[in-house]
């Protein structure tokens, strides 16, 4: 064929049209990823918790992306992570940054105070907010699309109190708690539960944020001669130090604590000083579903250490899987549609148990009381709010 101007234009036009139509099919254009925001506290005094959240999310995404049957429309998950650090203002900055990153849902930090600080911004964006913050108020902030994937302090506080009074036959109950939103909120729940039983705490001590010595608070509790001490603490390192000091100051009464007493890191650091203590936790190894067993195995294989299932990685892992299931079922990632779907969640099996959404967005309605026996948690009983 002679190459004149007419032929040249016709040939190049045909090639261009063919390329425009066929190119994506030929090369298999990569599907657009589903961008999921996470805001763990990766630095500061709560970095232990944040690292666990990071690991839980990364494991879930890795598994989901490796299984085509779990991925909606062949679109892989992509995590966009910003550090919430240790203060509210930085958490809000991290959130504002994420909101500019085209994410379809956000897994919030586990610290309730940060969740509450972020609430004014959250209210202006209708996307799913998955939280592990247990302060009762978190789901009452008027944020559309807020879902809690752990038992609230209402359930935990009531469960701990009932266990101390009814099972441990406590008549003089003392409370030791952190002075952050988590600690104060939990202690308030305990006081309310005691009131319902016609009781008042014989001591109610709180320690300041970032304290490293708890002698004064423990000795004051000891002076009140309680027969059970209830502890409401978020930070695993605080928990470990307190348990060591309780032991060295010979406060020899049953201890019933919030989930941090069952935190893997806290139990390892406290060692023998934590033996015999009780805690209300979201999860106990050995009493779990196939989902939980798979999670534990995969987590250990990937990270070579055990997860802090309840406070750290388990709820984040569940959050990512729940979103993946929802996107697949509703055949889309539209945030408003996702919120509606999540509100309808019933009997969804996850690592932390069976999830069902109530009107406020609470998805977990019971916790377990476990006892630390030689460094391992053993189930004592299940309690609900």
């Amino acid at each position, binding site marked *: 064929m002679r190459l004149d101007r007419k032929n040249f234009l016709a040939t190049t036009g045909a090639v261009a049209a063919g390329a425009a139509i066929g190119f994506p099919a030929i090369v298999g254009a990569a599907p657009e990823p589903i961008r999921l925001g996470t805001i763990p506290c*990766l630095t500061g005094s709560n970095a232990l918790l944040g690292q666990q959240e990071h690991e839980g999310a990364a494991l879930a995404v890795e598994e989901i992306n490796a299984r085509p049957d779990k991925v909606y429309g062949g679109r892989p998950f992509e995590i966009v992570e910003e550090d919430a650090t240790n203060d*509210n*203002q930085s958490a809000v*900055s991290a959130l504002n940054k994420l909101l500019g990153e085209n994410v379809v849902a956000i897994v919030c930090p586990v610290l309730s*105070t940060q969740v*509450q600080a972020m*609430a004014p911004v959250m209210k202006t964006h209708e996307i799913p907010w998955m939280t592990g913050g247990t302060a009762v108020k978190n789901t009452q902030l008027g944020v559309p699309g807020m879902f809690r994937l752990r038992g609230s302090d209402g359930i935990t506080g009531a469960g701990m109190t009932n266990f101390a009074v009814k099972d441990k036959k406590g008549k003089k109950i003392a409370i030791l708690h952190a002075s*952050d939103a988590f600690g104060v909120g939990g202690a308030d729940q305990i006081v309310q539960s005691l009131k319902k039983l016609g009781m008042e705490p014989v001591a109610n001590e709180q320690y300041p944020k970032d304290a490293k010595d708890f002698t004064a608070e423990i000795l004051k509790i000891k002076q009140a001669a309680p027969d059970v001490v209830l502890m409401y603490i978020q930070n695993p390192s605080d928990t470990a130090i307190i348990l060591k000091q309780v032991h060295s100051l010979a406060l020899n009464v049953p201890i019933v604590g919030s989930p941090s007493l069952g935190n893997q890191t806290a139990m390892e650091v406290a060692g023998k000083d934590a033996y015999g203590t009780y805690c209300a936790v979201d999860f106990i190894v050995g009493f779990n579903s196939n989902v939980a067993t798979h999670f534990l195995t995969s987590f250990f294989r990937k990270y070579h250490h055990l997860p802090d299932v309840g406070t750290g990685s388990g709820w984040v892992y569940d959050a990512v899987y729940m979103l993946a299931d929802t996107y697949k079922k509703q055949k889309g990632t539209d945030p408003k549609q996702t919120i509606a779907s999540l509100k309808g969640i019933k009997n969804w099996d996850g690592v932390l148990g069976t999830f069902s959404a109530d009107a406020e967005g609470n998805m977990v309605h019971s916790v377990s009381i476990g006892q630390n026996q030689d460094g391992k948690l053993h189930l004592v009983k299940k309690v609900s709010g």
Partner: protein
Amino acid sequence: MTSNPNVTLSGPNVTLSSSKGGASRPVAIAVLIAVLALLPAFVHSDYLLSLVDTAGIYAIVVMGLGILLGFAGQLSLAQAAFLGIGAYTSGWLTTNLGWPAWPSMGAAMMMSALVGLAVGYPCLRLSGHYLALATIGFGIITQLVLINWKSVTNGSDGMGNIPPPQIGSFVFDSYGRYYYIVLVAVLACAYVAWRIKTTRVGRALEAIRENEIAARATGIDATRYKIIAFVLAGAYAGLAGSLLAHLTKFISPDSYSFDQSVVFLVMLIVGGSASISGAILGAVLLWFLPEVLRPLKTSYIMVYGAAVVAMVVFMPRGLVGLLDTLRTRFTRRPDAA
């Protein structure tokens, strides 16, 4: 004492008199204000605007600390507590009594100033690290009060639903709109600080900073001026606290810790402690630095720490001192060497 009538804007040893700056200085300031006023027209990211707003508010806190430490030489580690008092005063008045935001801001300033007076008076006999220890104690007590006075502060749950300011039906409910309130407040505070510095009060504070005994010997009422410095530092922090409360709409005691006071002190030292522009620069730099370093993930804290150490070691007069040195070097005439 021989007082220096010249204006010192950028460091204790560098005079920036009108004769030196010439007519170009007001023009430069006017251009800078115009550029700043146009910022929201070019920056549309809520993330960036929220950072700018917060940086401006922190600049006000640090300017207040600059009056106390930079001008008067009184070391305080309670600036976060004054910030908290301002924030809670404004938050309480608007959410409990239904006050509008504007008078609440004035009340927040006054409340923090009064507390500054109450703290400054008993601390008059103290100086140096003893004064620092006393202010640390005051800061910790304040945070404990905010946590435990639940009927007023709502305890650790914090105070929410704090309304944004409004003029008529125009509500300052976005970061872009709020920026103008912050900008006006920063400029007003900088002007007041500059006026203080150039008047008898500023020179008296400077004399006290350099040698209190000598200052007293020349007839300066050191007690009175030190109290004035405490009151002004409190008022600045109170205004900033109120601005922060109406920006974030939620406040909790966690934000007003000793750690935060240390951050404000570092901002001032890095910027240049005796300089108004240094206080602003230090606050802006140290608030933005962790954000700029976000891509480094958890390693950012190492780089941030190293950067702060390097700034303190290699820039003993702060950023403003460095800028001054550079300006002197580049503007020096060859025959002047």
